[in-house]
C-alpha cells in the first residue's frame, strides 16, 4: 500500500490529514469548504477507530481500503514493532504520526544463550533518530533485546520531555551513566523498569539524580543493576514518592535497609526484596529490626521477588503477606523443600510462582497442595548442567498437574522425565497456553520406559486446545513433529533443540501449523528440502531460526530468490582459509519491508587462545564468521564480510 498516493482533491486546501475540514483564511468565507461525504466518513471513522485498541484489530481495519488505512494511521497511538529489522524507522514515522507509546523488540530469543555475536545488531539509535523528530510527545518506551547506549538514553531524555514510562528488558550497552541522565532529565517519569538487562557500573550515583521534590514515581525496578546504591538517598527518594507501588531492589540492598524502605512505603503492591540477608554475618550490638511487622504493615503487597542472597532463616518474615500474594518469585533463592513448605502452605491465592529446583519434587508437592489457583509455574535449575542428578523430576510435574488444575503456563527444567507425567499434565491442565519443558540432558528418553518423549508432547498438543507456545526437549523423533503439525493449530511459538531424525520433522511443522509465527530450532537434522516446505508460510512469520542444522548456502540462496520480501541472514564458519564451505551455522530469516539491514557485524578475526582446526576465534569480542546477507533484489548474494586476516 503506497503512502504516496494522490489524495482526492477536496478543494480549498483541506487535506484528509487534518481533522478539521474548515479552512478560513482572513475575512469572509471565501475559503470555506463544506465537508464532502468522504471527509465526513473519515471523521466518523477516526472517532470510532479511537476505540480500537488491539493492534490486530487495527491492522485489520487498515486493510479495508485506503481511506480506512489513512484514518487508522492517524489515530493509532500505540505501536508494536515485533522485529526492529522488519521495517525501517522512517517508514514507520511516515505512516503513524501520533504515537504516544512504542514497543520495539530486537534480537531473536536465542541470542540470550550466546548463540549470536555480541555486536549482531538491534541498535536503538536509528529508531531514536526518527522518533526524536516525529514522536516528541512520546510517553511510553518499551525495548526488548535492543542495544541501547548511554548516548541514546541521553537523547531520549532530551527528545521526549513528557516521557512517563521507560521499560528496558534484556537490553545492554548502557550503564549507570545513562540511568543518571534519565533520572535527572525525565521529569515526568512514572515508571522506570530495568529487567534482566546488563548494565555497566560507571560508578555513578544515579539514584541521587532524581529531582529533589516529590516525584510521581509509581514503579522503580532496578534489581538487575549490579552496582552499589546510595542507600540514604534511595530512602529519601522512596519517602518522597507517595505514588510508588512497585519497588524492586538490587542485591546491594541488605535486609536491614529493606526494612527501612518498607516502613516508608507500606503502600507497595510489588516488592523486590534485594539480597534479603544482613550485610554482616552477625548484627552484633544492633537490635535486629522486626521484619515480620514491616511485612505485616504492607497490606497491599501482592507480588514478592528478590531474595537474591537469602539467608533462609529470614524467610519467616514474609508470613504476614503470604495469604495475599498472587505472585512469588523465589527463583534466586536456593532453598529446600523444608524451607519452602511453611511459606507456600499459606499462599493460597498464589497465581504465579517461580522457584529453583532446589525445592525438589517434595517442594512442588507442597505447592500443588496449597496453590489451587496457580496459573504460572517456572522451575529453574540451580545447576544448569546437562548431566546432574537434579532434584526435580516427573514426580514434581505430576504433582503440580494434579493440584493446580488451572495452570496456564509452565516452564520446567529437569534432568529426568516420563511420558506418563507429561500425558497426565495434558489431561489435568486443559487450560495450558504455554508448555515449556526442558529436559537438560540432550536426547534424554523417558527414564522409566527408555522411549522417546514423542508421546508426551503429542498429548500436550492434542489435549491442550488453547496451546500457543511450546518448547520441546529430550529424545524426540520425527513423530513428535507429526503430532505437532496435526494438532498444534493454534501454535505461534515453538522452540526445538536436539530433536528429530529427518527433514520430515520440519516439514510436518511448516505444513501443519498455520499460525506459526516464531520458530527457533537448534542442533536438529533439518536440511534444505525441509526449508523449502515453508516457502508458502514465511511471509506470515515473525522469524525462522535454524542453527547447527543441515541447511546449506545453496538452500538459503534459493529461499531468498523465491521470496524477495524476506531477509535471509546466514552465519557460517570459514573453515577453509579461502574456501566457502556450504555449511551454514545459523540461519535467521524474517520478513522485511525494507530489505537487508546496513548494520550487520563486520567479520572480526583475532588470534584466539585455542586453535580449533582451521577456524580461529576469540572468545570475548570477535566472532569468527562470514556474515552473508542475501539480498533479495539481486540474483546472487553479497558477502559483507572481509576475508579473515592471518592470525598474528
Amino acid at each position, binding site marked *: 500500500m503506497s503512502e504516496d498516493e494522490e489524495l482526492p482533491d477536496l478543494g480549498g486546501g483541506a487535506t484528509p490529514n487534518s481533522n478539521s475540514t474548515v479552512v478560513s483564511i482572513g475575512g469572509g468565507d471565501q475559503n470555506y469548504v463544506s465537508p464532502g461525504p468522504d471527509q465526513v466518513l473519515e471523521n466518523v471513522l477516526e472517532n470510532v477507530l479511537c476505540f480500537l485498541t488491539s493492534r490486530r484489530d487495527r491492522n485489520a481495519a487498515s486493510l479495508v481500503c485506503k481511506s480506512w488505512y489513512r484514518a487508522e494511521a492517524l489515530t493509532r497511538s500505540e505501536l508494536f514493532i515485533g522485529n526492529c529489522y522488519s521495517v525501517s524507522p522512517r517508514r514507520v514515522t511516515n505512516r503513524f504520526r501520533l504515537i504516544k507509546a512504542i514497543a520495539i523488540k530486537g534480537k531473536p530469543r536465542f541470542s540470550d544463550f550466546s548463540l549470536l*555475536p555480541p555486536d549482531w545488531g538491534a541498535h536503538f539509535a536509528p529508531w531514536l533518530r526518527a522518533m526524536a523528530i516525529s514522536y516528541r510527545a512520546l510517553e511510553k518506551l518499551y525495548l526488548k533485546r535492543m542495544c541501547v547506549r548511554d548516548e541514546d538514553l541521553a537523547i531520549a531524555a532530551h527528545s521526549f520531555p513528557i516521557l512517563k514510562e521507560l521499560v528496558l528488558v534484556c537490553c545492554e550497552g548502557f550503564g549507570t551513566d545513562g540511568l543518571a541522565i534519565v533520572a535527572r532529565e525525565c521529569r515526568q517519569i512514572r515508571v522506570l523498569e530495568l529487567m534482566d538487562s546488563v548494565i555497566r557500573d560507571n560508578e555513578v550515583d544515579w539514584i541521587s539524580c532524581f529531582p529533589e521534590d516529590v516525584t510521581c514515581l509509581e514503579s522503580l525496578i532496578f534489581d538487575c543493576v549490579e552496582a552499589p546504591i546510595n542507600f540514604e538517598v534511595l530512602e529519601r527518594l522512596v519517602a518522597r514518592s507517595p505514588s510508588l507501588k512497585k519497588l524492586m531492589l538490587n542485591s546491594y540492598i541488605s535486609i536491614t535497609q529493606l526494612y527501612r524502605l518498607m516502613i516508608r512505603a507500606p503502600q507497595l503492591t510489588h516488592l523486590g526484596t534485594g539480597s534479603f540477608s544482613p550485610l554482616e554475618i552477625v548484627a552484633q*550490638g544492633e537490635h535486629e529490626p522486626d521484619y515480620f511487622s514491616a511485612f505485616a504493615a504492607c497490606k497491599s503487597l501482592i507480588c514478592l521477588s528478590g531474595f537474591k542472597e537469602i539467608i533462609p532463616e529470614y524467610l519467616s518474615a514474609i508470613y504476614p503477606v503470604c495469604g495475599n500474594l498472587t505472585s512469588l518469585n523465589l527463583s534466586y533463592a536456593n532453598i529446600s523443600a523444608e524451607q519452602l513448605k511453611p511459606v507456600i502452605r499459606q499462599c493460597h491465592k498464589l497465581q504465579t510462582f517461580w522457584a529453583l529446583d*532446589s525445592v525438589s519434587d517434595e517442594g512442588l508437592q507442597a505447592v500443588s497442595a496449597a496453590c489451587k489457583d496457580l496459573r504460572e509455574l517456572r522451575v529453574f535449575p540451580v545447576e544448569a548442567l546437562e548431566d546432574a542428578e537434579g532434584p526435580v523430576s516427573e514426580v514434581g510435574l505430576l504433582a503440580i498437574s494434579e493440584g493446580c488444575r488451572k495452570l496456564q503456563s509452565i516452564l520446567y527444567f529437569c534432568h529426568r522425565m516420563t511420558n506418563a507425567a507429561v500425558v497426565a499434565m495434558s489431561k489435568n491442565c486443559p487450560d495450558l497456553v504455554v508448555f515449556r519443558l526442558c529436559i537438560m540432558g540432550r536426547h534424554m528418553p523417558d527414564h522409566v520406559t527408555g522411549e522417546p518423549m514423542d508421546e508426551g508432547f503429542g498429548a500436550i498438543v492434542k489435549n491442550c486446545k488453547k496451546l500457543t507456545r511450546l518448547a520441546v526437549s529430550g529424545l524426540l523423533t520425527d513423530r513428535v513433529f507429526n503430532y505437532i503439525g496435526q494438532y498444534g493449530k493454534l501454535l505461534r511459538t515453538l522452540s526445538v533443540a536436539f530433536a528429530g531424525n529427518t527433514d520430515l520433522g520440519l516439514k510436518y511443522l511448516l505444513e501443519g501449523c498455520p499460525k506459526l509465527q516464531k520458530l527457533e530450532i537448534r542442533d536438529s537434522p533439518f536440511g534444505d528440502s525441509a526449508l523449502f516446505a515453508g516457502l508458502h508460510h514465511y511471509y506470515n512469520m515473525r522469524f525462522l531460526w535454524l542453527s547447527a542444522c543441515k541447511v546449506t548456502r545453496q538452500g538459503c540462496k534459493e529461499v531468498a530468490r523465491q521470496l524477495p520480501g524476506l531477509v535471509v541472514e546466514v552465519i557460517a564458519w570459514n573453515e577453509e582459509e579461502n574456501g566457502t564451505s556450504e555449511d551454514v551455522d545459523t540461519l535467521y530469516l524474517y520478513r522485511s519491508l525494507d530489505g537487508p539491514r546496513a548494520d550487520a557485524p563486520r567479520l572480526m578475526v583475532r588470534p584466539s587462545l585455542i586453535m580449533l582446526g582451521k*577456524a580461529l576465534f576469540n*572468545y*570475548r569480542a570477535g566472532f569468527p564468521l562470514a556474515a552473508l546477507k542475501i539480498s533479495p533484489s539481486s540474483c546472487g548474494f553479497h558477502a559483507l564480510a572481509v576475508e579473515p586476516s592471518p592470525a598474528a
Partner: protein
Amino acid sequence: MAHQNDLNLKATELRLGLPGTDESEDMVSTAKNNKRASPASVNDSGLNSAAKSADNETSSASKAQIVGWPPVRSYRKNNLQPKKADSETGIYVKVSMDGAPYLRKVDLKVYNGYSDLLKALESMFKLSIGEYSEREGYKGSEYAPAYEDKDGDLMLVGDVPWDMFMSSCKRLRIMNGSEAKGLGCAL
C-alpha cells in the same frame, strides 16, 4: 516406584568430584556436527564451555558443554549463589540474661573459641564474667555463662571442646547472683 525417586539417595552419596558431575553417565551421542566448533560464548564462563566443546572429537570423562545449553540466561546463571551447606550458614543462638528486658542473638561461628565468645558477651551485656577454671567454674564473678544443650539440660559454658559446644548449644543464658554461684559450686 515414584517414591524411590523421592529419596534421592544420590544426593547424599559420598564421593569425590564436583557437585553435578557424574562420571557414570555417558553421552548419548556427541554433537552431530563434529567438525563444527560452536560459536564463541560471550559470558565469563565462555572460556570453559568453548574450550570444552572444542574437544568434541575426544571423549572425556566430563561431557563437553555445549554453548547455550541448557537454555538458561547467563544473567540467571551468574546470579545464583551456590547452596550454603548448613555448615556454612551461621549458628545463631539466643542469649538471655536474667533481668535483661530483651534477648540477643549471636552467631557462634564468628568466634574462634570460648574466650572470644565470652569477651563478646561481656561487651554486649556490659558485665564481667571472669575466667574459667575446670574446678571452680567462673570464680570471682557475679555471672556465669550457661547454655541449654540438645537434651534441654542447663550446662556451664566451657566444659566441652569448642566444636562440640557449637554443635550442641541451643541457647545461651547468663545467670547471675546466687543461682550462678550454685551452678559453679555444683562442680
